[in-house]
């Protein structure tokens, strides 16, 4: 039997255009003109606070929410026009445990496949494989009641894969999970990507979006504010890329050096940080994210992050070491050479350089003017 449009392998698997959803009796649109496309095999993350419209968007694509306007297609099938066919192509892992409590874990998988018309022998084989892969084989005959949130989550992912969907929708896949369960889900998502399953996941956790998604769509108030790779989203946020430098002064003036750094092309402003001047602050929130170039930069791990330990100068003596953060207008790596040259011209010694990249949180703040959490 035919199974739905396989697509030509090149066109988008998910295509949403000008999607609008207004719920009954609502005063504003829950989704307000959203457009995006997802390539085959891609992991797309929809990032935004609660109420941003992420779950509604997923609801439309999975035929559970009727759109008010626009179009939404999965593998060329318009989900509003032919929801029955669309349901063959998608699978959903919802936020809440909706496993069938009257059935065992294995039966949950088997019946799901039966609903989707997977032949008996095949569904038995797939269920065994997936239970094994998800570490559920020894609990296959237990009822879902006895499962923790993380385990139920795993069962729901396994269930979703039983009919081999073209697109898997994960709605807040790790909300409320403990760290180990969260990492397990992350691993499974990476596996899915490795085997070419297209995944759309929603999250309000920027780390998760940065960690898992090939591209991230930032949503707020029903609108898609930006959509790009995490690196591209954070690139070019003016003044958000930073370069942190540590310098041994050797008698030269700290003020002169700071002024010199601030006068460099591409430097927005300079802020002394750390031991020598100002309060000991370490690395403030700016570059802390785990993504992009949070860690790299010049020094080995552990070297760059301990500003306080290296300034034993007595209070009375002029500061011998300077730490400063440069807020840049462009790319940080390009600034390393000019900074090094300037420091050398001041007869000071550059001892550490660290690049701080902005996080998705910064992107969100830049787009909406407020913090994500």
């Amino acid at each position, binding site marked *: *039997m035919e*199974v739905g449009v396989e697509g030509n392998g090149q066109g988008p698997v998910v295509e949403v255009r000008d999607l609008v959803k207004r*719920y009954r009796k609502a005063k504003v649109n829950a989704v307000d003109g959203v457009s995006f496309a997802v390539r085959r095999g891609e992991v797309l993350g929809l990032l935004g606070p609660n109420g941003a419209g992420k779950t509604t968007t997923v*609801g439309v694509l*999975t*035929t*559970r*929410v*009727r759109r008010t306007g626009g179009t939404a297609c999965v593998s060329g099938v318009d989900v509003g026009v032919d*929801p*029955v*066919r669309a*349901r*063959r192509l*998608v*699978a*959903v892992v*919802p936020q*809440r445990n*909706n*496993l*069938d*409590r*009257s*059935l065992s874990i294995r039966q*949950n998988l088997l*019946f*799901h*496949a*039966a*609903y*989707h*018309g*997977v*032949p008996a022998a*095949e*569904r038995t084989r*797939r269920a065994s*494989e*997936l239970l*094994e*892969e998800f*570490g559920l084989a020894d609990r296959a005959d237990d009822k879902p009641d006895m499962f923790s949130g993380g385990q139920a989550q795993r069962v729901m992912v396994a*269930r979703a*894969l039983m*009919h*081999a969907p073209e697109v898997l929708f994960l709605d807040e896949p790790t909300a409320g999970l403990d760290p*180990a369960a969260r990492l*397990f889900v992350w*691993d499974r998502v990476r*596996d899915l990507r*490795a*085997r*070419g*399953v297209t995944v759309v996941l929603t999250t309000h956790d920027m780390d998760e979006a940065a960690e898992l998604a090939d591209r991230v769509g930032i949503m707020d108030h029903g609108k898609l504010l930006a959509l790009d790779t995490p690196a591209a989203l954070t690139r070019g946020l003016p003044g958000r890329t930073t370069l942190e430098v540590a310098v041994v002064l050797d008698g030269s003036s700290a003020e002169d050096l700071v002024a010199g750094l601030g006068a460099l092309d591409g430097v927005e402003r300079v802020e002394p940080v750390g031991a020598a001047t100002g309060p000991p602050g370490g690395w403030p929130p700016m570059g802390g994210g785990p993504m992009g170039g949070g860690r790299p930069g010049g020094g080995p791990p552990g070297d760059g992050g301990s500003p306080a330990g290296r300034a034993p100068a007595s209070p009375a003596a002029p500061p011998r070491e300077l730490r400063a953060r440069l807020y840049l207008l462009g790319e940080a790596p390009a600034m390393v050479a000019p900074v090094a040259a300037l420091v050398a011209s001041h007869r000071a010694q550059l001892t550490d350089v660290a690049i701080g990249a902005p996080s998705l949180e910064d992107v969100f703040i830049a787009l909406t003017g407020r913090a994500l959490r």
Partner: protein
Amino acid sequence: MSTTTSPVTTPVRPRVAGGPARAFLAVLWRDLYVTGRELPVFLAQVVLQPLFLLFVFGKVLADLGFTQPGYTRVLFPGIVALTAVVTGLQSTAFPLVIDFSFTKEIEDRLLAPLPVGMVAVEKVVFASMRALLAALVMLPIGVWVLGSIPWPASGVPLFLTVLVLGCLVGSCLGMIMGTAVPPNRINVMFALILTPLLFTGASQYPWTSLDDLRWFQVVTALNPLTYVSEGMRAALVPEVPHIRPWVSVLVLILTIVVSLAVGIRLFLRRAVD
């Protein structure tokens, strides 16, 4: 936590056979499978109330001389009718309230490749099957409690017709209740709807005998259960005055059509935002 890293499942799409009809049968099979596994519990749940009604009104009161001889012949068809309608009603209403409001278990079936309205129809078909089973179990129970039951061979076709219609009526009304009643009101609603339904359905008295209690006769005429009870009497105890069978059958069919249409609409409203 054992984490197998081998990429096991192939991305190959499984062969998929059949269309919505097959999905419908799979969804129905799930419900039958679950009910079949807890059959004794199910029967105890639905048979106990009619059993006691039959025992107290048909046996105890009769033996004590508080009812006229022959009352059990009036009562028995009414109790079968009551069992069919109430079991059907409970078999759609309760699970739907729980599914839509609390467990969300139904979501997996709403995402199955069949029209959402068909999921609603499946609920009605399944609930009717449960109701049919419960009502049929009342036959041996009637023999056991009362000693004998009226069972004229000529009445069996009408009995079966009315029985099936009664099961469907109950299930369709249950669909409306289960989807229309907000979850926080469910206790109140069941008390306010179920109790009057039990006693205004002409199951404990023949409708035509209410001529002298006109207002109550009008009230009972509004209860679909009345037509099931009266149809049952027409089939099993034709000597007892009853509403003409074709009227009962017609009213039941119309009720099924209207309540199913309304029920599916309400179901769709709950299932799809």
